């Protein structure tokens, strides 16, 4: 009889199991939502075939748990959708005709084109599109800097926008909240369950709930998290700023304020007090669709609770009022006395682990460099921000079409799919048709590779032994599970080889990833071989948690060229003089999405429902992995979540094919009759295009008639983006009918 519920496998147990089942076991890091510091895993190999995955108990990130994706890595690695060799386009753009070429040919063609363009038009005409934050992001930066371009194209949908607004308000990034100690938790525009279920947040939520914490969830629809919520605040998509402003109205006017904190540590409270009088709960009700009574109720619960935290998610980063929303929430946290206090929103902790030496070449940035940005993600005065200089992803495509201020001539898309990942798919396709040179690098077919001049086939993280990963207090070497299945290199090797081919070898360890890793490990006094001898990595101690670290964080300097502090008064910038100097509103305001119930009431007759999309799902990473049959079985078709009343009115039944039409495009998807959504709102997961060979499901069109939510939204430069942080809106109005 087994020991009851001893939980996930340790290395010893994994070894024992592998012996009994005649397999080998390789400790490594999951690569299904990265590569990044993913979850620790044990990969099992039988007769040279990667067969199974189990969670690594020793890992302080996942403690042995894995999400659904983690288990099915072998299906992803062996997918018929994998690219096989480098390809060169021989047909028209979009036609999908290629010839197979060698790695050397591919590198020569790319380097030849880049050298020519650098000489003729300047190095800044190269842009690299950012995938999500990846372990290779800094290598992309390094290549751009060695080449001479500031144009890293970052997509304003995830994490960085929030970080910007947090840091320019309180000097530190407020990731998550203190689930362990909070009595009240507001989950706001976030999905703590599907955003890394195997990592901290889902377990923290379950524990908080079991302990009796009050959970309030603020979002247009609920998923499994609805089962944990004591109160659901069903807000219309894209109206978070209005809700946050009204909550400020309540706490200020009902004096639920920590006056001592405000007097000592806040700048501009009096101006806020005056300013927010406009934003009454009744005003917010018309915009957000949340009853005024509920707004007041929730603001009071939060304002009165001593230990209350707000777990703010990427949902709030998808609106033209994103900066206002994030700033208003941050101010709410601060003035109610919940900043860096037990149960509240905490500044990032520190630990004893050294930081690996960066591969970024940030020290080379100059004013002239910043001036060359083709379409800054943040205004130039705020560049570079924490990750480096950046242009907004969509502005890179705009520059191709408008040639203003100059046209980008080469775009490299490393692990990102612009036609399905950024708003305005029609414009992206137009730009890709016009673009001089387009390079796609990925492990499997991508949505837009038919427009690529060169396609680079990458190894999955299971077919490489690099990089090592370090996060929090844990550092671990990635180990190769199987030899590459075809002529693959990793993204790192591709960048290093391209650097060498360009003549930048000295900046690229002359093509040696081993040297690169050893270089980065200098602060650890360790080589990669030495690190590799620790099968489950090395854990360092975390420092005991301290609170009220105001002096430290309120005096932090920004990473901008000026090096000015984030907070010029050394206090919470309720009234933001830095923004004011640059011509932006110093206090949070309300700005309508490009199309909405209250902003464009004239459209409501023809388009009576609000559409938005989900950023995360329990099964897929962004627009990838629809080709993995075990995942696809659970969610085979793109489904629109629609409330039973809205469906009934249209004669729509569960699983019916339906047409969803906005002023900008249309989709053909399936209906999922869904109780947990506002009746005036419909939602769909973003990123649908890929078929699944094993299940006989074909690709969907990328533009009209497909299932691509990005094709549905406005990309009007004056309305669809946050003017300061270039967050992109993902709200529009739609009509829905049976297909």
């Amino acid at each position, binding site marked *: 009889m087994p020991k009851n519920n001893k*939980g996930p496998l340790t290395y010893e147990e994994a070894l024992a199991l592998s012996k009994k089942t005649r397999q080998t076991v390789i400790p490594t890091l999951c690569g299904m939502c990265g590569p990044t510091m993913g979850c620790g895993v044990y990969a099992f190999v039988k007769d040279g075939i990667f067969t199974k995955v189990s969670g690594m108990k020793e890992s302080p990130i996942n403690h042995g748990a*894995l999400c659904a994706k983690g288990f099915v890595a072998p299906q992803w690695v062996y997918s018929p959708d994998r690219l096989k060799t480098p390809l060169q386009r021989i047909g028209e753009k979009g036609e999908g005709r290629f010839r197979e070429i060698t790695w050397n040919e591919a590198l020569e063609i790319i380097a030849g084109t880049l050298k020519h363009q650098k000489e003729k038009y300047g190095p800044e005409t190269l842009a690299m599109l950012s995938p999500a934050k990846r372990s290779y992001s800094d290598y992309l930066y390094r290549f751009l800097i060695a080449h001479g371009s500031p144009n890293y194209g970052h997509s304003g949908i995830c994490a960085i926008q929030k970080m910007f607004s947090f840091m320019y308000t309180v000097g530190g990034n407020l990731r998550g909240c203190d689930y362990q100690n909070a009595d009240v938790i507001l989950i706001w525009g976030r999905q703590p369950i599907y955003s890394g279920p195997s990592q901290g947040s889902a377990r923290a939520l379950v524990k908080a709930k079991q302990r009796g914490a009050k959970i309030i969830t603020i979002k247009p629809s609920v998923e499994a998290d609805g089962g944990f919520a004591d109160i659901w605040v069903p807000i219309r998509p894209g109206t978070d700023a209005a809700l946050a402003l009204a909550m400020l109205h309540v706490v200020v006017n009902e004096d639920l304020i920590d006056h001592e904190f405000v007097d000592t540590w806040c700048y501009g409270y009096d101006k806020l007090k005056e300013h927010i009088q406009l934003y009454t709960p009744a005003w917010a009700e018309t915009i957000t669709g949340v009853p005024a009574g509920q707004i007041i109720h929730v603001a009071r619960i939060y304002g009165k609770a001593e230990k209350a935290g707000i777990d703010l998610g990427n949902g709030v980063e998808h609106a033209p009022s994103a900066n206002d929303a994030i700033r208003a929430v941050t101010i709410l946290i601060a003035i109610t006395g919940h900043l860096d206090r037990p149960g509240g929103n905490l500044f990032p902790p520190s630990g004893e682990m050294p930081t690996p030496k960066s591969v970024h070449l940030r020290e080379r940035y100059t004013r002239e460099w910043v001036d060359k940005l083709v379409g800054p993600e943040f205004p130039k005065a705020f560049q570079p921000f924490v990750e480096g200089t950046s242009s907004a992803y969509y502005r890179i495509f705009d520059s191709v079409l408008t040639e203003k201020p100059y046209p980008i001539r080469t775009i490299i898309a490393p692990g990102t799919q612009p036609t399905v990942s950024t708003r305005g798919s029609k414009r992206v396709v137009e730009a890709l048709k016009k673009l001089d040179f387009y390079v796609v690098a990925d492990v499997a077919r991508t949505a837009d590779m038919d427009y690529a001049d060169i396609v680079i086939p990458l190894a999955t993280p299971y077919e490489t032994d690099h990089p090592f990963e370090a996060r929090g207090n844990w550092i671990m070497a990635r180990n190769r599970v199987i030899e590459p299945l075809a002529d693959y290199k990793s993204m790192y090797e591709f960048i290093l080889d391209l650097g060498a081919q360009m003549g930048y070898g000295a900046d690229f360890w002359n093509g040696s990833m081993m040297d690169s890793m050893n270089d980065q490990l200098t602060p650890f006094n360790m080589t990669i071989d030495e690190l590799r001898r620790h099968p489950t990595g090395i854990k360092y101690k975390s420092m005991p948690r301290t609170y009220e670290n105001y002096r430290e964080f309120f005096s932090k300097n920004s990473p901008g060229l000026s090096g000015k502090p984030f907070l010029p008064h050394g206090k919470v910038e309720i009234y933001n003089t830095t923004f004011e100097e640059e011509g932006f509103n110093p206090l949070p305001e309300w700005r309508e999405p490009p199309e909405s119930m209250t902003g464009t009431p004239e459209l409501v007759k023809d388009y009576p429902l609000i559409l938005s999309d989900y950023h995360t799902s329990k099964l897929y990473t962004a627009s990838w992995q629809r080709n993995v049959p075990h995942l696809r079985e659970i969610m085979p078709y793109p489904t629109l979540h629609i409330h039973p009343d809205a469906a009934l009115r249209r004669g729509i039944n569960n699983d019916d094919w339906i047409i969803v039409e906005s002023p900008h495009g249309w989709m053909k998807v399936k209906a999922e009759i869904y109780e947990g959504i506002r009746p005036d709102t419909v939602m769909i997961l973003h990123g649908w295009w890929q078929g699944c060979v094993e299940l006989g499901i074909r690709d969907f069109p990328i533009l009209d008639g497909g299932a691509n939510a990005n094709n549905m939204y406005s990309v009007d430069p004056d309305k669809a983006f946050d003017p300061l942080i270039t967050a992109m809106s993902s709200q529009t109005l739609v009509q829905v009918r049976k297909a």
Partner: protein
Amino acid sequence: MPLQYGFVFDPSKCIQCHSCEMACKSWRDVELGIHWRQVKNIWENHYPEVTCVSVSVACMHCVEPECIKACPEEAIQKLPGNGIVIVDKEKCIGCRTCLDACPFGVPQFGEDEKMQKCDMCIQEIEYQNELPPCVRACPTQALLFEETEEERKKVMEQSVQALLSR
């Protein structure tokens, strides 16, 4: 009283991550289209008071299995000693009578058209001193495995049945 193996499921801890389902599919090489374990969402009440509850369900290896009573070919048996319910594919004629009889909708029919379902990873448990992969995968301990008494197991059956019929 003899002890039996059983699953214990606590809906208040389940986050619907589907990890148990995926661990089962991948570790047991379950064929496409077949689910030995399934995670379901069940809505409760109506907007705006709507909430939901989860259930992760595989064969309950019932104390008094309805499938066994229903099977005309005596293809299903409950093993003495551990209470695991298994199917003899040689005897099964694919009539699906067991599917109608099972209160949990468990029996599945794939390529070979014979009944298949969770066998509680009898190999892993009995011979390798292991936990079933589905249980090992659960990040919140919503799904547990235990050796238990008939009475307690019956209560578990009733509670999962109650969840499914909500």
